[in-house]
């Protein structure tokens, strides 16, 4: 192993020996493509999430519990996985049985759980993306992967950014990150996009304003 390390490094050095220094990286691309207005940004996020078949809802902080309860009931979810740190009030109205991920649920227990409710770290309007970083109320990665229904709460405007270049500085690389743009999908059959493979087949995004 040590030998190969030295060998590969030596081969690299020999390969580029005397090669000219390439031109410096110019970052003259745009930091954002969308206008800098919170309302317009939220509309764009809404539109792009929906374009990739996420179901998008608008509500206020007071309306979250009722909306969560209604969505779980509509989808027939009898059990819901709960990440540590999820605000209690979000599940204040649902009749679904709560399964707190503390101690950790096994993969089989997660597979037998109908839904999961989480918050997020940041949402990107231009691409219709929500990013989870495992922080409070988001849980470990498997939690939002194995159950078939994911309800994700986004607090606007503070969690919404316009673009990928504006999202990256807000994320900590050391944390496990999951970027989600719509429900799971595949283009593997005739390069035609179909939603619903291994990840949650239904993604409900709750955009909360007026906090």
């Amino acid at each position, binding site marked *: 192993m040590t030998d190969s390390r030295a060998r590969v490094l030596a081969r690299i050095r020999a390969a580029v020996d005397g090669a000219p220094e390439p031109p410096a990286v110019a970052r003259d691309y745009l930091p954002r493509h969308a206008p800098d207005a919170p309302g317009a940004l939220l509309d764009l996020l809404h539109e792009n999430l929906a374009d990739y078949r996420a179901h998008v809802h608008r509500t206020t902080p007071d309306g979250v519990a009722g909306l969560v309860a209604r969505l779980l009931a509509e989808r027939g979810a009898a059990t819901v996985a709960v990440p540590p740190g999820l605000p209690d009030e979000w599940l204040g109205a649902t009749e679904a049985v709560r399964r707190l991920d503390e101690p950790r649920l096994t993969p089989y227990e997660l597979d037998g759980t109908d839904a999961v409710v989480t918050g997020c770290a940041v949402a990107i309007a231009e691409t219709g993306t929500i990013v989870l970083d495992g922080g409070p109320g988001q849980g470990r990665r498997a939690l939002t992967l194995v159950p078939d229904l994911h309800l994700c709460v986004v607090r606007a405007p503070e969690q919404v950014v316009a673009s990928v270049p504006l999202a990256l500085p807000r994320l900590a690389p050391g944390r496990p990150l999951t970027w989600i743009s719509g429900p799971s999908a595949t283009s593997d059959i005739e*390069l035609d*996009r179909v939603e619903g493979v291994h990840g949650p087949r239904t993604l409900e995004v709750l955009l909360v304003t007026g906090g």
Partner: protein
Amino acid sequence: MSGTFVGMPAFPKAAHEAVRDERLRANLRHATHTIRDKRARAVAELDDWAALREAGKRIKDDTLRHLDTYLLQLEESVTAAGGTVHWAADAAEANRIVTDLVKATGETEVVKVKSMATQEIGLNEHLEAEGVAAYETDLAELIVQLGEDRPSHILVPAIHRNRGEIRDIFRDRMGSWGRPAPDGLSDTPAELAEAARLHLREKFLRAKVGISGANFMVAETGTLVVVESEGNGRMCLTLPETLISVVGIEKVVPTWRDLEVFLQTLPRSSTAERMNPYTSMWTGTTDGDGPSAFHLVLLDNGRTDALADEVGRQALRCIRCSACLNVCPVYERAGGHAYGSVYPGPIGAILTPQLRGTASEVDASLPYASSLCGACYEVCPVAIDIPEVLVHLRERVAEEGGRGHRLERAAIKASTWVLDHPGALTAGERLASAARKALPKRLPGPGARQWTDHRDLPELPAEPFREWWRKNRT
């Protein structure tokens, strides 16, 4: 087990057979045209595409110029975050490292995320020989594995299969690998995806070892990035206790910020989406979330040979989006299998001969598997000048000799002489026109006959153009 590329015929022979397969051509035409138009629309949404493309190119060029520095930095970051870094000079070494790591866990099966690097080194075949079952979990890879087939596209390895064929493979083969396909399975993509979900779920839930590649590795943070759609990647990266990632050394990028370029250009170039459904990023291991052991195997396997070629090294910028395959007229007609490698299409035609050398017949034929139309360069999100590299590699193949290539050089020399001597040209043209009835459709003689094996000779006009011009226009 998947088929193998070993002993493949040269591109012209394989392509000749493929273009006669009407169904294959129809499948490819449908798929490539669908994605081609979508890609153009997804790219057109960004006004600064040209600037993003140039930035991506320069980031990769800087990476390659200082690859040793960035790899050492990566090694340090990954190690500090709880991962273990291994170095593999070639395929055999990488296979051995991975097999030893799997065996150390005591497991006899692994789940896999789609990975070009592990296909390149033939990891599945190696693991099978060592008594370890490797389950592919990407839908297209599953289709290829169940059908004992070979991949034919970088992004969609089963692009040569239409929905009806996929239904038949699932119906006939799933049962012998695990959960059988549901009764009465139809050929609608949604039902086929559902069948894959059910078939693989049990494997994900019990998996103890996952094997992946990576799209990017960030040197400064030690973060690995996997871009996917289905969630099979997330399953393999998250549920097992041990994760082993085999990644080509050129996949490193210097900084966290560099991702802002590639996470914009890759999804739009690849699946024509603003963003792919799932992107996973992890740095070493995290207590209480995901695998407790992480191994990164850095793979050379010919990459440093490509790096040593001043013109050819730009192929190492490739981010495996496959946009060049989808626009290539040669790929569209010949299909991926004709390229005799896991890297088909225009990028394969320049990457494979550099990674494997040009000693074999198929590898020496690859730089000729192109009409040099340049569409691949136009769509490349890291501006790899594929035609330039093709021509460069043709020179290399010609210099290395072989009968056909000596003839080609002789022919070019002869035509240069004729064009420099107008009298000889005129006499030759008149003679050809006068004798055109007697001319065969195929050329006689060694070398020349091979040329017309794949082409019809053009009809000779009744009189040479220069003759016609003299009579009518002067």
